[in-house]
């Protein structure tokens, strides 16, 4: 049996989406061509936009620029303010958080090289930032506030609406990295009060290589990719018709299945979490009311994260580790430490993220296997023996 529980990193394509994706691969006509083939493609894109605008609550005067990924969208937003700064704008400060994905952290590190300044807000034991701290970080020269919707690792959801209100109060543009939002939360950009919102189709059962960048009408914008007049000149490059049509479908299905996510998937998640907590010396993190409905983040005392991933992998269970050894830099364990966990436990974190395609049978399989694996690895573990005897 194969159980895929790493949906916060990427998801399998919905069969319905895949069918639409394949079907539309044959529409090779360039939307910019004036002959019939182009017209046909154009119609498909207009239909896709008819789905996507209401799906995230965008207004007609706003833009949803099609990108290759959330990463591209995040880079576009951050670098818009770099260009403005390099052109003489006084605004040189960005407020963001330590919980951000590398697609925010890396461009922030990049803009610092040009003299911009970045404040990284810390998160609490629930993985959330303090909105008062955010307000305190705002300066005369703050150009942008950028806060992710939710963490792919801890699953912690940030108080986006409150942040949006603060941003509005001070008249500062607000960007939200929404990679983890669509399919796991109701997204309405107007309600959230965001000026920018980024997403990737592959996080909600759409294809890889296609995503979106919402830009509220009037928000500063400088293209990252210059080229033809695609996307109104805001993002050059031939249009990925099949990808866009499939993404629109995936969005529609994600919204249609939100109830399922909130009531069924979260119930399966709860079941898994409860069973994990029945194993001695385990812990889960982030209060459920602040956590994505599909995510469990847990620690297993005495078992190093990668060793656990390996054993899970041996029996066809795919999860993620918030800890060290599988990453290149070996700096890991940061996720659990950020949630206030002791360094001794921080290397034992495992993240399970479900999707609407996760079945009860699959969860039962994990529940059946997990205690055995834990026993085996704790048998090897010297530190667990020490914990028990000490």
């Amino acid at each position, binding site marked *: 049996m194969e159980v895929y529980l790493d949906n916060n990193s990427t998801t399998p394509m919905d069969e319905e989406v895949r069918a639409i994706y394949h079907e539309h691969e044959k529409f090779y006509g360039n939307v910019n061509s004036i002959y019939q083939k182009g017209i046909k493609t154009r119609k498909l894109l207009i239909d896709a936009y008819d789905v996507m605008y209401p799906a995230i609550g965008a207004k007609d005067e706003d833009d949803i620029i099609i990108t290759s990924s959330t990463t591209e969208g995040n880079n576009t937003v951050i670098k818009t303010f770099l260009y403005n700064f390099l052109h003489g704008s006084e605004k040189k400060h960005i407020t963001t958080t330590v919980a951000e994905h590398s697609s925010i952290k890396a461009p922030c590190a990049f803009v610092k090289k040009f003299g911009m300044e970045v404040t990284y807000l810390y998160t609490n034991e629930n993985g959330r930032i303090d909105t008062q701290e955010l307000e305190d970080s705002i300066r005369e020269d703050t150009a942008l506030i950028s806060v992710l919707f939710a963490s792919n690792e801890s699953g912690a959801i940030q108080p986006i609406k409150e942040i949006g209100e603060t941003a509005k109060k001070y008249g500062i543009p607000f960007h939200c990295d929404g990679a983890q939002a669509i399919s796991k939360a109701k997204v309405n950009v107007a309600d959230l009060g965001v000026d920018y919102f980024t997403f990737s189709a592959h996080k909600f059962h759409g294809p890889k290589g296609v995503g979106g960048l919402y830009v509220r009408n009037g928000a500063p914008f400088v293209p990252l990719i210059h080229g033809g007049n695609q996307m109104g000149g805001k993002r050059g490059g031939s249009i990925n018709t099949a990808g866009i049509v499939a993404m629109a479908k995936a969005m529609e299905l994600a919204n249609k299945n939100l109830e399922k996510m909130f009531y069924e998937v979260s119930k399966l998640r709860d079941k898994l979490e409860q069973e994990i907590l029945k194993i001695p010396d385990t812990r889960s993190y982030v209060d459920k009311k602040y956590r994505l409905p599909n995510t469990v983040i847990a620690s297993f005392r*005495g*078992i*190093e*994260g*990668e*060793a656990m991933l*390996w054993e899970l*992998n*041996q029996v066809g269970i795919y999860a993620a580790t918030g*800890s*060290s*050894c*599988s990453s*290149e*830099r*070996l700096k*890991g*364990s940061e996720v659990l430490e950020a949630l206030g966990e*002791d*360094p*001794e*436990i*921080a*290397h*034992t974190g495992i993240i399970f993220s479900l999707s609407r395609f996760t079945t009860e049978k699959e969860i039962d399989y994990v529940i059946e296997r997990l205690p055995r694996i834990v026993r085996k690895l704790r*048998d*090897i*573990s*010297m*530190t*667990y*023996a020490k914990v028990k005897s000490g």
Partner: protein
Amino acid sequence: MARGDLITGNIWEEYSQKVIDRMSNPRFLGEFSEVDAKERKAKLIVADFGSEACGDAVRLYWLVDPKTDKILDARFKSFGCGTAIASSDVMAELTIGKTVDEAMKITNLDVERALRDNPNKPAFPPQKMHCSVMAYDVIVEAASKYKGMNPKSIKNSEIVCECARVTRKEIEDIIKEHNVKTVEELQKYTDAGTYCKSCVRPGGHEERSVYLVDIIEETNKKIKQGEILSKIVTNVFDDMTLLNKIKSIEKVLKEKVSYILEADGGSVELVDVKEVEDNEVEVLIEYKGACSTCNAAVLTLYMIEETLKKELETDKIRVVQV
């Protein structure tokens, strides 16, 4: 950057079959008790290294024959990833049958090599070497327990390359002996920095307190300073630094010239010393007291110059009155 770097590597894919086999089914996992030791007439040694906070830890059990110092049997327990388990397993195995002193010669590179399928292909990716291979350190812990010594006294030299266990002194000696200026040159004479490369320069897989590039730079600097230092202590005036030339001139003026002038109610003051062409030194002096109005001043100037030349054993001095 190159084609091979464009698609991120998967660390599990880079594990050798031996690593995968050992991490899934370790042969020497377990522990020994005092009862086991008594049965085999051996001394029980239990040693720990690493910590959970660091992400990896290992405990080594030995049964050592006190008569021969031979390790009769070994077991381990481990907190760590698969490579930590696999390498601890091989480490325990490698120590069996060896004397404690022989076991202490086992390096992390020996363990890694024992896990290779193909002698030319590393058993696991380099970043795994430091986080998970703790063979040498735990063996030293165990050996020092057996010998009743402080492990620090065994590990007295500063290890720069953990993989091949090369000390700073060994590296410095190579640099001095072979006039090494680059890491590539250095590696003609040692394995240091050839495996995981963390110790070569900052930015590798593991942060180090000292890097090969620094040692090369510092040692070369020292060699250069050494040359300067030898110039300072030299008593050949022409080879001295300017500062030491000035000091020597002052000394001669004070000891061999002043008392002659003082007898006539005058004195001389050193105003400046300049290095001019051809390594020659121009000494600028000013007469004070009776000398400033003396008719014999030129002769005195000649006397001073000759005294300096004689005392300092050089003809590269010219005395000028300001």
